[in-house]
C-alpha cells in the first residue's frame, strides 16, 4: 500500500516536472563525489525555472 502511494506520488511529480531528489543525490555521489550537492529546495527552484522558463517549447494544445 505504501509502495503504491510512493509510486503514484513519483508519477504525479514527474507529470509536472518536479525532480526526484534521491535520484539526484545518487547521481552526484556516483559521478561527482567531491562536489557539494544542491539542497532539496535549491534543486526544486532550479528545475522549476528550467521547466517553465520557456526554453523548453511550452505546453501542448
Amino acid at each position, binding site marked *: 500500500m505504501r509502495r503504491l502511494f510512493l509510486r503514484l506520488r513519483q508519477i504525479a511529480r514527474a507529470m*509536472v516536472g518536479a525532480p526526484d531528489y534521491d535520484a539526484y543525490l545518487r547521481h552526484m555521489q556516483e559521478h561527482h563525489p567531491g562536489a557539494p550537492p544542491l539542497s532539496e529546495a535549491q534543486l526544486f527552484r532550479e528545475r522549476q525555472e528550467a521547466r517553465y522558463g520557456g526554453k523548453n517549447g511550452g505546453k501542448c494544445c
Partner: protein
Amino acid sequence: MARHIPWILIAIVGAVSLSVVAVSRGEAVNALWIVVAAVSSFLVAYRYYALYIARHVMRLDPARPTPAIRRADGMDYVATDRTVLFGHHFAAIAGAGPLVGPVLAAQMGYLPGTLWIIAGVVLAGAVQDFMVLFISMRRDGKSLGELIRMEMGQAAGTIALFGAFIIMVIILAVLALIVVKALAESPWGMFTVAATVPLAIFMGVYTRWIRPGRIGEVSLLGLVGLLAAIVYGQDIAQSPVWGPAFTFTPVQLCWILIGYGAVASVLPVWLLLAPRDYLSTFLKIGAIAALAVGIVIMAPPLKMHAVTQFVHGGGPVWSGGLFPFLFITIACGAVSGFHALIASGTTPKLIASEGHAPIIGYGAMLMEAFVAIMALVGASILDPGIYFTMNSPAAVIGTDAASAAAAVTAMGFPIEPGLILQTAKDVGEHSIISRAGGAPTLAVAMAEIFSHVVGGPAMKAFWYHFAILFEALFILTAVDAGTRAGRFMLQDLIGLAVPGFKDTSSPLPGIVATGLCVAAWGFFLHQGVTDPLGGVNTLWPVFGISNQMLAAIALMLGTTVLFRMKRDRYAWVTMVPTAWLLICTVSAGWLKLFSADPAIGFLAHAAKFSEAAARGEVLSPAKSMAEMEQIVFNDRIDAALCAIFLAVVLSLLFFTIRTCIAARRADRPTAQEIPAVVAAE
C-alpha cells in the same frame, strides 16, 4: 501461435464493436461500443504495428545507451522509470485540442470522427510521436528544429522554426478564443477562473518560501480552494452587486486575456505559472480518468445521428465538406504536429532505455486518442438539438430560445424552446445559445455524465462549472507558457538578422519579443471575438491546417531519416501518413484560399464584401461600413496565413525529396546519428 490467441480475440471483439457502430441505423447505439472498438483497436495496433516499427523499421536496441545514460547530469538528463516517464509524457501532450476537435467534428455525426480518430492515430499520429522520439533519442535529445537542420540543412531548419512560431501564435489565439466563448456573460464561470489567480499566487508563495517543493500538499490546498470557488461562485453570480461585476462581454474578455497574457508571461515562473500548472495538470488527469469511469458506469446511448447531412458541407459549426475538412478539424486527437515538439523536448532526455520508446512514443498517443474518443462520445450523447443550439453562430440561429429552436428544428434536429431554457437553467447559465468552441458543449456532457454518477440532477450546475474551470485552467496555463516559448522562438528568428537580439539575458529584446508575441495572438483573438460568424468558424480550420502541417513536416523528417539510414524499404511507414496529411492540408489550404464559395474561401469572402462595400451596401452580419472593411481586412490576413503555411510545407517537401534522392545515391548510411560505439563509450 498460442501467444497470438488473446490478441486475435481482442481483434475480433474490436471488429464486432466497430461493425455495430458502423452499421446500426435507426435504433440508438450505446456509447460503450465506440469505447470498446477504440480500446481493442489500440491494443492490437500497439502489440503488432508499434512493435513491428520498433523491431524492423527502427531496430531499437535496448543495449544502446540513451542520452539519459550517456549525458547523465542529474538535472536535464535523468534515466527515468518507464511508467513514471509515461505519466510525464502523457501529461505534456494532453491539452485542450483532443477535447475540442472531436466535439466540433460531431456536426457530421459520430461515425466519421470515430473512424478517423482510430485510423488516424494508429497509422499517422502515434507513428509521428514515436518516430520523432526515436530520432531525437539517437541525437542527444535535440529539438525538432535542430533535427531538421541536422538532417535536411540550415534553410529547412529555419523555415520549420518560422512555421512553428506562426503555428504557436494561432494555437494561442484559438485557445484563448475558447476561453472567451466559455466565460462570456457567465459570472459563475468567470468568478471561479478569476479566483484561481490569487489561489495560484498563494500556492506559489507556499512552494517557494513556506514548504519548498511540497507539490502534493499545496495541490490539495489548491483543490480545496477551487471547489470552494465553484460552490460560492453560484452565490456570487446571483448577487446583485457581484453578479454584474463578473459579467463581461466577449470583447471585454478579449482585452482582459491579452492584458493577462502580457503580465503573466513576464512574472517569475514560481509565482503564477508553475503552481497553476500543478493544479491544471492534476485536475486534467483526474477529470479524464473520472470521465472514463463515468462513461463506463452510465453506458449512455448515443443521440447524435451516425452521419448527418452536413458531411456534404453547409454545416453551421464549421464550413466545408467531409474531405478535407473533417481531417483538419479533429486536430489533436488523431494526429498532432505539436507533439513533435514534446517528443523532441524533455522526454528523449529522460528515457532510460530504447526499449521503452514504443510505450512512451506510440502508447501515450494512443491514450490521447482515447481522450478524443471520450470527447466525441460526450458530444454525441447530447440531444442533437442541444448540440446545434450551442454550436451554431448567432448569425444563423438568432439569440433567443424561440428563434434557436425554430432554426435548429429546420435543420432537421427537432427541439422545443423549453428544453433549451431548461438545459441552461440546469447548468446554472443565463443562456446556452451559440456557445461555440467545444468547451461549453463538453461541459454540458460532462455535467450529464458526472451528475449521473455523483449527486444527481441537483449537482449538474456544479459539474458544469467544474468542467469549464478545468478546461479554462489548462488553457490559461498554455497561453502563459506558450507566450514564453514564443518569445524565445521569436528572439531566435530575429536574432538571425539582428544578432544582438538573441541575448536572452538582456531585458530589452525579451520585452520586445514578448510584446510582439502577445500582439500577434491578441490580433487573431480579437479578430475571432469580433467575427460575426463566431470566430471558431474561421480560426479553428486555420489552426487545424497549421497543426496537421506541422505533423506532415515531422513525418517528412522521419522519412528523410529512414532514407538516410538506408532503410528505404521501410519508409512507407512514414510516407503513407505524410502523403495523406499533405493531401488533406494542401487541399484544405487551397480551398480556404481559392474556393469560390464565400463560406469556405477567404478570398471569395473578401471579394463579396469589398464589392458590396464599393456599391455602398452593408452586408449582414456587418452593421456598418467600418465593419465591412474590417471583415475584408481579416479575410486577407487569414488568406495570407494560409499561403504562408502552404509555402512552408511545400518548401519542406522540396527539401525532403532532395535529401532522400541524395541519400539513395550515397553508398552508405548518411544519417547523423550518434554511432552505437560512441554512445557506448
